[in-house]
Each structure stands twice: as structure tokens, then as C-alpha cells.
């Protein structure tokens, strides 16, 4: 089985499980007392945010590893992760305002986490634009690795600087020093959704990585015995 096929299978399983998570979230998880049905979007929004953050973290890691060992696989992986991360940040950025309008009474607010995720999105876009603008594969890999590492370092600074304003976003409820402040049934749904989104990330990245391999093969055919094109 090729990489693309394996990625396809994982994505398929992920999507089926996502449907199951939806069923569980809508039918078998209690409605939140204060927010009502609007809170259901939480099971989509928070895991999407997790996958987007995971993508950026792994773009940074792939970039560091590429510059250390100069193996094209890390560059392909970082490129795939950035593209998948862009998709997840879009999910996060669209579901957030839909929830915020009924609950906060506003589509958008410049709170620390919102601003952070918006800039995460801008970073992904900038990273992909830079990749598109450099044609020489070796240069593209090095340039985008430099940008990927800078992006990873930037995010804590953005969070810190915006955090110095007062923040409106719900405080962390799972990853915090004391026990999670979420009823058991909601927590199970949320954690299941986290697992599904992580699986989807893996499936998407595998497929995108396979696309890079195909592009390189095609570029290689065009150039004869060229050095190959890692997109």
C-alpha cells in the first residue's frame, strides 16, 4: 500500500470517527446549563485549535531537524504540516465567532488566545506564500525552515504581549494544575474529539506528503536525472 493510500485510509477512519463524535456530542452528551446548544461547537472548535497548534509545533520541529541534518523528508513533512495546519486554523477561526456571537455577544474580540490563533493563521499563510515564491528546492527548504523556526519562537511573544491586556476567553478547563472542571461525560466527548482530530492530522499530513513525492517525481522526469524537487 502506498503512503497516499495509507493516508487515505487513516483519514477515512478519522472522518467516520468524527461522525461518531458528532453523534455522541449531540445526542449523548448533556446540554451545558448556561450556554445551551451553542456549547456543542466546543467539541469541534477546541480540537481544531489543538490540531492547528500541533501543526505549527511540528512545522517548527521539522524545520529545526531539516537545518540540522538536511534531509528532504523533514522539509516535506514541515510543508505538509503547514498546509494541514492552515485548514485546521480555518476551522478554528470560523467556529470560534459562530460560538462567540451568542455567548459573548460579539463575533470577535482581541483577547490573547484569539489574537494568537489569528496570527497562527497568518504565519501559516506567510510560510506557504514563501514556499510558493521560491522555486529552487534547496533554497526553498532552507528559507522556509528559517521562517518556521522564527514562527515557533514568535507565538509565545504574541501570547504574552496580548495577555498583558485582560483576557476574555474561557480559562483552561482540561490542562490546568487542578483537576479538569468539566463533567465526566463532556470530558469523554472532548477527549474523543481530540483523538479524532489528531488522527485526521496524521491522515492529512500523510496524503499531503505523498503529493510532495509525486510532484518531485514529476519534476525529476522533466529534468531527467535532476536532483529532485521537494515541494
Amino acid at each position, binding site marked *: 500500500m502506498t503512503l497516499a493510500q495509507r493516508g487515505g485510509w487513516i483519514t477515512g477512519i478519522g472522518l467516520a470517527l468524527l461522525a461518531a463524535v458528532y453523534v455522541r456530542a449531540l445526542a449523548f452528551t448533556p446540554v451545558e446549563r448556561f450556554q445551551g446548544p451553542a456549547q456543542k461547537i466546543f467539541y469541534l472548535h477546541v480540537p481544531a485549535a489543538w490540531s492547528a497548534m500541533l501543526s505549527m509545533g511540528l512545522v517548527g520541529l521539522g524545520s529545526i531537524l531539516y537545518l540540522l541534518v538536511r534531509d528532504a523528508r523533514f522539509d516535506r513533512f514541515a510543508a505538509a504540516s503547514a498546509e494541514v495546519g492552515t485548514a485546521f486554523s480555518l476551522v478554528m477561526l470560523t467556529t470560534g465567532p459562530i460560538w462567540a456571537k451568542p455567548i459573548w455577544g460579539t463575533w470577535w474580540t482581541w483577547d490573547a488566545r484569539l489574537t494568537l490563533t489569528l496570527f497562527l493563521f497568518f504565519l501559516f499563510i506567510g510560510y506557504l506564500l514563501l514556499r510558493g*515564491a521560491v522555486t529552487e528546492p534547496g533554497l526553498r527548504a*532552507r528559507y522556509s525552515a528559517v521562517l518556521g*523556526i*522564527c514562527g515557533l519562537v*514568535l507565538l509565545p*511573544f504574541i501570547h504574552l504581549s*496580548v495577555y*498583558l491586556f485582560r483576557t476574555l476567553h474561557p480559562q483552561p478547563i482540561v490542562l490546568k494544575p487542578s483537576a479538569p472542571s468539566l463533567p465526566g461525560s463532556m470530558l469523554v466527548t472532548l477527549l474523543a474529539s481530540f483523538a479524532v482530530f489528531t488522527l485526521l492530522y496524521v491522515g492529512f499530513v500523510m496524503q499531503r506528503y505523498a503529493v510532495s513525492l509525486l510532484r518531485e517525481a514529476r519534476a525529476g522526469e522533466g529534468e531527467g536525472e535532476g536532483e529532485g524537487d521537494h515541494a
Partner: protein
Amino acid sequence: MADLLRQAWTVARKDLVLEFRTRTAIVSALVFTALVLTVFNFGRDPTAVPTIDLAPTILWVTFTFAAMLTLNRAFQLELENQALEGLLVSPLNRTSLYWGKLIANLMFVALVESVGLPLFVLFFDVPVGRVLLPLVGVIALATLGFVAVGTLFSALVMRTRFAELLLVVLLLPFLVPPLIGAVQVTALLLGGRPLSEAAGWLRLLAAYDIGFVSLASLLFRFTVDE
């Protein structure tokens, strides 16, 4: 270390001499700064918004744009006649090359700001006399952060199409933390608040400068070496 700095100064001096002989870039940057300030004057309703409320915004948006536009210059001029290849085959340490470009850019932007600040005071009648020293300090802190990242990124985009536009798109997210800090401190200073209230922001600015000057010094060689 002394050797690194000496080499860096050689590069910076070369850039500044080039700039001084043609003066196109610096004159354009100065005129651009003056024009942005006038645009700000007409881009608001002076009867509705008191200048002092808008002053930090005007100052920092102007400085941010002026800095971004001047940063392209650093490596674009090395592309002509393959000057960059000449620099790279010379026995020049890569970190020194980065520092040299950084110093030249800093002096360039500092010159633009040193004209921009009096113009800003003149046009908008902002009382900066009492806080001039801390204000200049904040400008220096924020500018170092802007230029450290901008110099690295101008090396990234120099060989791409639409380099000027791409630089702005890549760079603006990185200017946000120093911009927020600088605007906040400027607002506190112009509002007559003690500098101690700005301690958190000043620490943030300093941490950003240290973080990105070190990171860019480390990463720069990957942008020029094969």
C-alpha cells in the same frame, strides 16, 4: 568577538557609504515618513478625536511602515552585479555579515526616526519634552526588535518575485509584539505616568530583542550559504 564586530562594522560602513553617495533610499524614506504623518492628520476628525489619544498610534504606525519599507534595501542592493557572491567568498563570518546589515539598517531607520519624531511633535503638537529620554529609549528598544527580524527576512525574500510585498506579509506578524509594547509604553509616557508602570512592557520588549537578535544571528547563515 572583537574580530566579529570589526568585520560587521566593515559591512555596515560599506552600506552606509553606498547610501550616503546615492541618498535615494534615505530621501525616499524621509519623504515617506513625512507623508504618512500628513495622511494621519487628514485621516481623522480633529474635532472628534483629541491628538493626544491618537498620538501613540500615529507615531508607531508611521515608524513601523517606514522601517518595513527601508528593510528591503539591505539585500536588494547586493543582488546587483552579484555583489552578494563577492561578499560570500570573502573571508567574512556569516554572523558578522548579519550584524553588519543589522547595524546599517538600524542606523538607517534611526535616522528616519530622528527626523520623524520632531516632525510628529511639530505636526501634532505633542508635548514630549518631559519624557524625551525614556521615549527615545522605547523607540530604540522596539526598533532593534523590528530591524533584527526584518534584516533576516529581507535575506529570505531577496530572490523571490514580489519581494517587497512578501517581506511585508512575512514581517508584520513579527512586528506585533514590539508594536503593542511600544504603543503601550508611549501612551503611558505621554499620559504622564511613571515609567515603573511600564516595567512589564519594557521587559517584554527587551526579551523580544534578545530573543530575536540571537535567533536571527544563529539562523542567518542558512539564508546565504549553500
